[in-house]
Protein backbone atom coordinates (compact mmCIF):
# COMPACT_ATOMS: atom_id res chain seq x y z
CA UNK A 1 0.00 0.00 0.00
CA UNK A 2 1.70 3.24 -1.12
CA UNK A 3 1.88 6.08 1.42
CA UNK A 4 -0.38 9.05 1.00
CA UNK A 5 1.33 12.11 -0.43
CA UNK A 6 3.82 9.98 -2.37
CA UNK A 7 3.99 10.31 -6.20
CA UNK A 8 5.02 7.47 -8.41
CA UNK A 9 5.58 6.93 -12.10
CA UNK A 10 3.43 4.21 -13.56
CA UNK A 11 6.39 1.98 -14.41
CA UNK A 12 4.25 -1.10 -15.10
CA UNK A 13 2.52 0.61 -18.02
CA UNK A 14 5.80 1.56 -19.68
CA UNK A 15 7.22 -1.92 -19.23
CA UNK A 16 3.97 -3.24 -20.66
CA UNK A 17 4.45 -1.11 -23.75
CA UNK A 18 8.02 -2.36 -24.13
CA UNK A 19 7.04 -6.03 -23.81
CA UNK A 20 4.17 -5.53 -26.26
CA UNK A 21 6.55 -4.09 -28.87
CA UNK A 22 9.08 -6.89 -28.33
CA UNK A 23 6.30 -9.50 -28.60
CA UNK A 24 5.24 -8.17 -31.98
CA UNK A 25 8.84 -7.66 -33.06
CA UNK A 26 9.48 -11.39 -32.50
CA UNK A 27 7.52 -12.03 -35.69
CA UNK A 28 10.32 -10.45 -37.69
CA UNK A 29 12.54 -13.37 -36.65
CA UNK A 30 10.49 -15.81 -38.76
CA UNK A 31 11.62 -14.12 -41.96
CA UNK A 32 15.19 -15.08 -41.08
CA UNK A 33 14.25 -18.77 -40.87
CA UNK A 34 16.56 -19.42 -37.92
CA UNK A 35 17.05 -22.74 -36.07
CA UNK A 36 15.32 -21.65 -32.84
CA UNK A 37 12.27 -20.14 -34.56
CA UNK A 38 9.94 -22.69 -32.97
CA UNK A 39 10.81 -21.28 -29.55
CA UNK A 40 10.35 -17.71 -30.80
CA UNK A 41 6.65 -18.37 -31.41
CA UNK A 42 6.21 -19.29 -27.73
CA UNK A 43 8.47 -16.44 -26.62
CA UNK A 44 6.31 -13.97 -28.52
CA UNK A 45 3.22 -15.31 -26.75
CA UNK A 46 4.98 -15.16 -23.38
CA UNK A 47 6.05 -11.54 -23.94
CA UNK A 48 2.52 -10.62 -24.99
CA UNK A 49 1.04 -12.17 -21.84
CA UNK A 50 3.61 -10.37 -19.66
CA UNK A 51 2.77 -7.14 -21.50
CA UNK A 52 -0.97 -7.55 -20.94
CA UNK A 53 -0.41 -8.37 -17.25
CA UNK A 54 1.76 -5.29 -16.78
CA UNK A 55 -0.72 -3.10 -18.64
CA UNK A 56 -3.58 -4.36 -16.48
CA UNK A 57 -1.51 -3.73 -13.34
CA UNK A 58 -0.65 -0.20 -14.47
CA UNK A 59 -4.22 0.59 -15.31
CA UNK A 60 -5.45 -0.78 -12.00
CA UNK A 61 -2.91 1.30 -10.05
CA UNK A 62 -3.91 4.45 -11.96
CA UNK A 63 -7.58 3.86 -11.16
CA UNK A 64 -7.26 2.69 -7.55
CA UNK A 65 -4.55 5.21 -6.49
CA UNK A 66 -5.20 8.29 -8.65
CA UNK A 67 -3.45 10.55 -6.14
CA UNK A 68 -0.21 8.59 -6.26
CA UNK A 69 -0.20 7.55 -9.91
CA UNK A 70 -1.05 10.82 -11.53
CA UNK A 71 -1.26 11.49 -15.24
CA UNK A 72 -3.99 8.93 -15.55
CA UNK A 73 -4.83 10.13 -19.08
CA UNK A 74 -1.28 9.25 -20.16
CA UNK A 75 -1.56 5.79 -18.58
CA UNK A 76 -4.81 5.17 -20.42
CA UNK A 77 -3.31 6.39 -23.70
CA UNK A 78 -0.16 4.26 -23.42
CA UNK A 79 -2.24 1.24 -22.38
CA UNK A 80 -4.53 1.68 -25.38
CA UNK A 81 -1.58 1.92 -27.74
CA UNK A 82 0.26 -1.04 -26.19
CA UNK A 83 -2.78 -3.33 -26.25
CA UNK A 84 -2.66 -3.35 -30.06
CA UNK A 85 0.77 -5.03 -30.53
CA UNK A 86 0.20 -7.29 -27.49
CA UNK A 87 -3.23 -8.36 -28.75
CA UNK A 88 -1.96 -8.89 -32.29
CA UNK A 89 0.79 -11.15 -30.94
CA UNK A 90 -1.71 -13.32 -29.06
CA UNK A 91 -4.12 -13.44 -32.03
CA UNK A 92 -1.22 -14.17 -34.38
CA UNK A 93 -0.07 -17.06 -32.23
CA UNK A 94 -3.56 -18.58 -32.26
CA UNK A 95 -4.19 -17.95 -35.97
CA UNK A 96 -0.89 -19.32 -37.29
CA UNK A 97 -1.31 -22.55 -35.33
CA UNK A 98 -4.79 -23.22 -36.66
CA UNK A 99 -3.55 -26.13 -38.74
CA UNK A 100 -5.19 -29.50 -39.23
CA UNK A 101 -3.22 -32.36 -37.72
CA UNK A 102 -1.12 -34.51 -40.03
CA UNK A 103 -1.56 -37.77 -38.14
CA UNK A 104 -3.25 -39.43 -41.13
CA UNK A 105 -0.46 -38.34 -43.49
CA UNK A 106 2.21 -40.85 -44.56
CA UNK A 107 4.77 -41.23 -41.76
CA UNK A 108 8.36 -42.49 -41.75
CA UNK A 109 8.44 -46.07 -43.05
CA UNK A 110 5.11 -45.78 -44.84
CA UNK A 111 4.57 -45.73 -48.58
CA UNK A 112 3.31 -42.53 -50.20
CA UNK A 113 0.48 -42.46 -52.77
CA UNK A 114 1.36 -42.06 -56.44
CA UNK A 115 0.47 -38.89 -58.30
CA UNK A 116 0.70 -37.14 -61.62
CA UNK A 117 0.54 -33.35 -61.58
CA UNK A 118 1.21 -30.55 -64.05
CA UNK A 119 4.52 -28.70 -63.84
CA UNK A 120 4.86 -24.96 -64.51
CA UNK A 121 4.57 -25.52 -68.27
CA UNK A 122 1.40 -27.58 -67.81
CA UNK A 123 3.18 -30.84 -68.65
CA UNK A 124 2.10 -33.82 -66.50
CA UNK A 125 4.84 -35.19 -64.23
CA UNK A 126 4.45 -38.39 -62.21
CA UNK A 127 6.12 -39.47 -58.98
CA UNK A 128 7.75 -42.32 -60.95
CA UNK A 129 9.25 -39.81 -63.37
CA UNK A 130 10.54 -37.69 -60.49
CA UNK A 131 12.21 -40.77 -59.00
CA UNK A 132 13.88 -41.79 -62.28
CA UNK A 133 16.68 -40.29 -64.33
CA UNK A 134 15.08 -37.53 -66.37
CA UNK A 135 16.35 -34.13 -67.33
CA UNK A 136 13.12 -32.82 -68.77
CA UNK A 137 11.27 -32.64 -65.45
CA UNK A 138 12.11 -28.99 -65.00
CA UNK A 139 13.68 -26.75 -67.65
CA UNK A 140 16.40 -25.36 -65.39
CA UNK A 141 17.18 -28.60 -63.57
CA UNK A 142 20.46 -29.95 -64.92
CA UNK A 143 21.10 -32.89 -62.61
CA UNK A 144 19.59 -36.38 -62.54
CA UNK A 145 19.98 -36.51 -66.30
CA UNK A 146 21.89 -39.78 -66.30
CA UNK A 147 21.43 -41.02 -62.73
CA UNK A 148 18.18 -41.45 -60.85
CA UNK A 149 17.87 -39.48 -57.60
CA UNK A 150 18.08 -41.47 -54.36
CA UNK A 151 14.99 -39.69 -53.16
CA UNK A 152 12.64 -36.83 -53.86
CA UNK A 153 11.85 -34.20 -51.29
CA UNK A 154 8.15 -33.37 -51.63
CA UNK A 155 7.52 -29.92 -50.25
CA UNK A 156 3.82 -29.15 -49.92
CA UNK A 157 3.30 -25.45 -49.38
CA UNK A 158 0.33 -23.19 -48.88
CA UNK A 159 0.65 -21.40 -52.18
CA UNK A 160 1.74 -18.06 -53.39
CA UNK A 161 -0.54 -15.04 -53.25
Amino acid at each position, binding site marked *: MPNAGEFRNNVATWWGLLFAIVALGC*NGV*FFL*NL*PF*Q*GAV*AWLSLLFAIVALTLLATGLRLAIVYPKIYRRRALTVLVTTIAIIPAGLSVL*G*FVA*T*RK*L*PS*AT*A*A*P*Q*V*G*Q*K*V*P*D*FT*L*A*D*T*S*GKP*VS*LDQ*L*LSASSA*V*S*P*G*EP*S*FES*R*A*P*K*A*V*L*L*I*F*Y*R*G*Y*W
Partner: protein
Amino acid sequence: MEKRLAEFEAAGVRPVAISVDAPDVSRNLANKSGYTFPILSDPDATVIRRYHILHTAGAPDEHDIARPAEFLVDSSKIVRWCNFTEDIRVRARADEMLAAAQQLR
Protein backbone atom coordinates in the same frame (compact mmCIF):
# COMPACT_ATOMS: atom_id res chain seq x y z
CA MET B 1 16.13 -23.65 -50.87
CA GLU B 2 17.39 -22.64 -54.29
CA LYS B 3 20.72 -21.57 -52.79
CA ARG B 4 21.23 -25.09 -51.38
CA LEU B 5 20.04 -26.91 -54.52
CA ALA B 6 23.52 -28.03 -55.48
CA GLU B 7 23.89 -29.63 -52.04
CA PHE B 8 20.60 -31.49 -52.44
CA GLU B 9 21.71 -32.68 -55.86
CA ALA B 10 25.03 -33.82 -54.42
CA ALA B 11 23.06 -35.82 -51.83
CA GLY B 12 21.06 -37.35 -54.69
CA VAL B 13 17.83 -35.68 -53.68
CA ARG B 14 15.46 -33.89 -56.03
CA PRO B 15 13.37 -31.23 -54.29
CA VAL B 16 9.86 -30.84 -55.67
CA ALA B 17 7.39 -28.18 -54.55
CA ILE B 18 3.63 -28.79 -54.67
CA SER B 19 0.74 -26.39 -54.07
CA VAL B 20 -2.78 -25.65 -55.29
CA ASP B 21 -1.48 -22.77 -57.40
CA ALA B 22 -2.15 -23.00 -61.14
CA PRO B 23 0.91 -23.71 -63.33
CA ASP B 24 1.15 -20.10 -64.54
CA VAL B 25 1.11 -18.80 -60.96
CA SER B 26 3.94 -21.18 -60.08
CA ARG B 27 5.77 -20.17 -63.24
CA ASN B 28 5.60 -16.51 -62.17
CA LEU B 29 6.88 -17.48 -58.74
CA ALA B 30 9.73 -19.52 -60.27
CA ASN B 31 10.68 -16.72 -62.67
CA LYS B 32 10.48 -14.04 -60.03
CA SER B 33 12.44 -15.98 -57.42
CA GLY B 34 14.75 -17.81 -59.81
CA TYR B 35 13.62 -21.29 -58.71
CA THR B 36 14.83 -24.11 -60.95
CA PHE B 37 13.46 -27.11 -59.03
CA PRO B 38 10.14 -28.57 -60.25
CA ILE B 39 6.98 -26.89 -58.98
CA LEU B 40 3.84 -28.96 -59.46
CA SER B 41 0.26 -27.81 -59.50
CA ASP B 42 -2.57 -29.55 -57.63
CA PRO B 43 -5.42 -27.04 -58.24
CA ASP B 44 -8.21 -29.28 -56.91
CA ALA B 45 -6.05 -30.48 -53.98
CA THR B 46 -6.60 -34.08 -55.14
CA VAL B 47 -3.10 -35.23 -54.26
CA ILE B 48 -3.00 -33.04 -51.15
CA ARG B 49 -6.16 -34.83 -50.00
CA ARG B 50 -4.63 -38.21 -50.86
CA TYR B 51 -1.68 -37.33 -48.61
CA HIS B 52 -4.10 -36.31 -45.81
CA ILE B 53 -2.65 -32.84 -45.47
CA LEU B 54 -5.63 -30.79 -46.64
CA HIS B 55 -6.22 -27.52 -44.84
CA THR B 56 -9.90 -26.88 -45.55
CA ALA B 57 -10.54 -23.19 -46.27
CA GLY B 58 -6.95 -22.50 -45.21
CA ALA B 59 -6.31 -19.72 -47.72
CA PRO B 60 -7.30 -16.12 -46.94
CA ASP B 61 -10.03 -16.45 -49.59
CA GLU B 62 -11.24 -19.70 -47.94
CA HIS B 63 -9.83 -21.93 -50.66
CA ASP B 64 -8.73 -25.42 -49.67
CA ILE B 65 -4.93 -25.57 -49.58
CA ALA B 66 -2.18 -27.84 -48.28
CA ARG B 67 -1.03 -27.54 -44.70
CA PRO B 68 2.78 -27.19 -44.87
CA ALA B 69 4.37 -30.66 -45.03
CA GLU B 70 7.66 -32.10 -46.25
CA PHE B 71 8.32 -35.74 -47.16
CA LEU B 72 11.64 -37.27 -48.11
CA VAL B 73 10.57 -40.20 -50.31
CA ASP B 74 13.07 -42.84 -51.45
CA SER B 75 13.03 -44.81 -54.73
CA SER B 76 10.67 -47.40 -53.19
CA LYS B 77 8.28 -44.52 -52.38
CA ILE B 78 8.85 -45.01 -48.67
CA VAL B 79 8.93 -41.95 -46.40
CA ARG B 80 12.41 -41.65 -44.89
CA TRP B 81 11.87 -38.34 -43.15
CA CYS B 82 8.90 -36.02 -42.80
CA ASN B 83 8.05 -32.76 -41.10
CA PHE B 84 4.73 -31.16 -40.26
CA THR B 85 4.95 -27.71 -38.73
CA GLU B 86 2.44 -26.74 -36.06
CA ASP B 87 2.76 -23.04 -36.86
CA ILE B 88 2.74 -21.59 -40.37
CA ARG B 89 5.29 -18.98 -39.27
CA VAL B 90 7.74 -21.77 -38.47
CA ARG B 91 8.74 -22.94 -41.92
CA ALA B 92 10.91 -25.97 -42.65
CA ARG B 93 14.54 -24.98 -42.90
CA ALA B 94 16.76 -26.01 -45.81
CA ASP B 95 19.36 -27.01 -43.20
CA GLU B 96 17.21 -29.70 -41.56
CA MET B 97 15.91 -31.02 -44.89
CA LEU B 98 19.46 -31.22 -46.19
CA ALA B 99 20.60 -33.05 -43.07
CA ALA B 100 17.85 -35.64 -43.65
CA ALA B 101 18.83 -35.91 -47.33
CA GLN B 102 22.48 -36.47 -46.47
CA GLN B 103 21.62 -39.30 -44.09
CA LEU B 104 20.22 -41.40 -46.94
CA ARG B 105 22.37 -44.19 -48.22
